[in-house]
């Protein structure tokens, strides 16, 4: 595999990170901001999984495994944990959005000015 192809996942990580951060900073709708956070989470998860990838590696299950290179199991475990935490985060953020919608009748960030400076 050429170096360009090998580093492609990491390029994708950078692109996703930029998209995620830009969405969080520039968008004014709460749901879109929360989507930005989800994109950022995906970028980090992709980063973790790519770390453990080995070219031509097989799944790291030792029972009756052929004698070949395996991908690293730990980053996969980390990613799974991170996905679970991400679900909890997203659920809590969306429930906040529901409350804001009920109380203010809008989820545009311009309405979130009642907390005085």
């Amino acid at each position, binding site marked *: 595999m050429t170096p360009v192809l090998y580093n492609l996942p990491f390029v994708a990580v950078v692109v996703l990170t930029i998209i995620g951060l830009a969405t969080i900073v520039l968008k004014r709708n709460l749901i879109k901001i929360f989507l930005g956070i989800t994109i950022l989470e995906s970028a980090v998860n992709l980063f*973790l999984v790519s770390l453990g990838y080995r070219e031509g590696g097989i799944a790291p299950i030792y029972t009756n495994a052929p004698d070949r290179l395996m991908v690293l199991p730990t980053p996969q475990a980390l990613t799974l944990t*991170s996905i679970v935490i991400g679900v909890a*985060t997203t659920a809590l953020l969306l429930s906040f959005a529901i*409350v804001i919608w009920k*109380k203010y009748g809008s989820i545009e960030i311009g309405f979130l000015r009642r907390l005085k400076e």
Partner: protein
Amino acid sequence: MIPPFVIENSPALMVIVPFVAAFIAPFTGRATAAARALVVGGAMAVTSAITLLLASDVYAHGTRLYVFGAQAATLAVPPDSGGIPVRIMFTVDPMSALMLVITAVSAFAVVLYSLASERHHSGLGSYYTLFLLMVTGILGMVATGDIFNFFVFLEILSIASAGLIAFRIDGGVAVEAAIKYFVLSTIGALAVLVAIGIYYGEYNALNMALIAQRMQFTLLDQLALVLIIAALAMKCGAVPMHFWTPDAYSMAPSSITALLVVASQASLYGLFRVVFTLYNITLNAACVGWIIIVLGVLSMVVGVTMAIPQKNVKRLMAYHAISQTGYMLLGVGVGLAVLGNQPLLDAFGYMAMEGGIFHIINHAMYKGLLFLTAGAIFFRIGTYDLNRMGGLGHSMKWTMIFFIIGALAIAGIPPFNGFASKLMIYESVFAFNPVLSVIAMVVSILTLASFVKVFHSIFMGPVLPEYRDVTEVPAPMLAGMGILALVVIVFGLFPSLVVETLVAPAAHALADQGMYIAAVLAGGA
């Protein structure tokens, strides 16, 4: 008297007990509120007892390891593992033990207080669930020896805290504060996760001791350091990233704010742990030390100047919390700046670190106490607005006394604990750089001025007609505040004893990276 099983498994039990109780509490609440109070109070008492037991054991016998899933609790490196600690483990050294003591005392005081202050509110099942999850998160964060495990507990803490900040809703305003806090914390936690990924990619390790042993301080490590310092400095409310602090602190129920202070200190602990244990002398200590000092000085000055014009008593206290965090960053930053230079470290570096660490425990006590008194006032008169208060000293004498104790401690007046730690910081920082020390003293004077004003407008003056029927708060709330006030006074009266037994071992454990690594990697022998 205490079964050996408990002592042996105390690191695991102190996390499991609140975690399990968190999910039992709402079910018992369906029967009666008294049953739930019993479960929550009992679980917290047991957790605090186990935590204090573990801490005293660590102070007596040195660093404790607890390896999950191994044949023996201390078997960090089994013979067949090739010298690599593969399992998740808790590594409780004196610095962690100090944080455990803070958490145990504060959380227990807060539970006592909550049992009375929250009695008339709805949704208490979820309140106590989230509260106990917060305690779990803090205890796990400060005890863990595995950097990914640190991230997991950090997220448990963030999610539970965000839920509690939004708990009162308050027409949506509390939810705004929670969104602000939670969006920032999530981005911060993801930055920490990227840093963890970098460490794993470079060193094939998640165990802090192993990463520390293999640390090369390459360009990637510098990137990871920047990500972690930025994320954790934000979580502890240091100045350029402090915007969430006044909102979250003022909108959360007061009992929770007292625990949020401890949660911020846990993030501060994480910051110090990464800088000192993972990197230690491999990094450019003077440069990183100065970055932390500058963060500290900015926090001190900006925090106190923003506090002075505040009209809401909790926002005012929150800005003071930012300002006090600056002292800890300053003290420990000075220690870091001279790390690796043994004569200077002996001359004033250790003392600066001890001052900073002593201030962590003092701050958690007196700031927790102040927030609880603010909550007590709100409990009786239903407002945080300073302009609408007055004359409460006639009817709420105990609350007034506790407020005076907290206010004098935060302003650094003897014989309270804030004076002891601030004096250590002034002296040692003066030897490092006199200007920093002068700034610290000026900030302290401004703090005193601000609290004199607050004291006057809350408690002094004639009884206002609308508050004629105000009475003292219930006994459990007074007991919660009393515990913290007692610690403030005792630490203020015997500072050298506390420094020698609690703080100095913690400072030396933090500075001595080799001891930490040896304690873990020799764990199979």
